[in-house]
Every structure is written in structure tokens, then in C-alpha cells.
């Protein structure tokens, strides 16, 4: 490309824009998690055996699960009601929030 300066400028602009269109924001997720806490616990460490722990779960798996409940691919009467009001960004933020919590591990 002839004009290296504009290339660098373009690359910089893209790099700076990345965080804005990246995944979820955990801070925002925390604010949106008050309803979820009722079943899944305040930090995702659910005290009830039938409601799964979310704390420390992989972010993309959590997001995938919420999407699956929303699309109906995964069926659960409680969860399908809960996700009805969640936007894509909400789901990403919630996933980011719970993924950061300490809980589930992969050490067996």
C-alpha cells in the first residue's frame, strides 16, 4: 500500500475500537444480575442443588447457554421466562460477570 501513514492510522483506529465492540462488560453484568441472584446466588455460587453454580464458568459457554434458552433450543420453563427480557448485550455482560467469579474449576 502506498500510504503507510494512513494504514497505521487505520490500524490504530480499529485497535482502539476493539474494546467497545468486544464481548461483555462484567461491571454492567453485575448490575443486571439481581434477578439471577435469587436462584443462582449473589456471586453465582448457587446454594440450591437444582440450580447450577455459574461462578467461574467459561464466559462463552454461559453466553451460549443463555442464547440457547432464548432461541428455545434449550428448554427450561424457568430460564426461558428469565431470558425473554435479555438483550444480546445483557447476555454477554452477565456471562462476563459470572465468568470472573471464583467457583467452578477444571481440577478434578
Amino acid at each position, binding site marked *: 500500500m502506498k500510504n503507510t501513514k494512513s494504514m497505521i492510522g487505520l490500524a490504530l483506529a480499529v485497535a482502539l475500537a476493539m474494546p467497545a465492540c468486544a464481548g461483555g462488560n462484567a461491571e454492567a453484568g453485575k448490575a443486571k444480575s439481581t434477578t439471577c441472584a435469587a436462584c443462582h446466588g449473589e456471586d453465582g455460587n448457587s446454594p440450591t442443588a437444582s*440450580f447450577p*453454580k455459574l461462578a*467461574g464458568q467459561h464466559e*462463552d*459457554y454461559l453466553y451460549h447457554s443463555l442464547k440457547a434458552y432464548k432461541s428455545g*433450543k434449550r428448554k427450561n420453563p424457568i430460564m426461558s421466562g428469565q431470558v425473554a427480557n435479555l438483550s444480546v448485550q445483557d447476555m454477554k455482560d452477565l456471562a462476563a460477570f459470572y465468568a470472573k467469579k471464583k*467457583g467452578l474449576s*477444571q481440577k*478434578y
Partner: protein
Amino acid sequence: MKAAYLTTVVAALFCAASLSSQAAGDPVAGRNKNSMCAGCHGIPGWRTAFPETYKVPRLGGQHAEYLVSALKQYKTGERNHPSMMAISASLSDQDMEDLAAYYASSYSGPSK
């Protein structure tokens, strides 16, 4: 008369105790049965196959009751995932309880 009554009660208690230990999961037994699971759930960063790629969920410390219900849902097809459905089809109820107990406790002791 009293002795007979007492014996019955004690016998009944023993029966109840042995029943519950059979139903509950044994994490050591679960550890011995997890060869099909470790390949996906035991490798950090492992992802599912295309087209929907996401990380295989962590199981360590999850509620045993929830894990059993998930396995049962895969077995009936209520929950849809090709690999999980195939694997859970081969698991008995006891297998499910044992595996769930193993993952719930993150048991890492010696296998039998």
C-alpha cells in the same frame, strides 16, 4: 416381644442405610468411570466442534444433583447435544450418580 420389636427396628435402619448408600454417588467409583468425560471436560480451553464453538463447561464443584439431572436430560434427548447424548445413553443411573459425586467433590484422591 420387646427384643423382636427392637431387632426389627434395627434391621429396618440397616436396610435404610444400605439403600441410601447405593443411591448416593461414590466419587471414587466416579473417578474410575470418567474416561469418556475427561477427554472434553478435563482439558483446559477445550472447545466443542464446529459450527457452534464454545468452551466445554467446567464441572468441578458443580452441584451433583444438577449434574445428574443434566445427564438424564441428555439421555432422554430433552437436552440436545450429539456427544453428550451418545455418552449419557451408555450411563446407568448409578454411573451418573458416581460421576456427579466425583465432579461435585473435585475428588482427586487415589482411584481404587
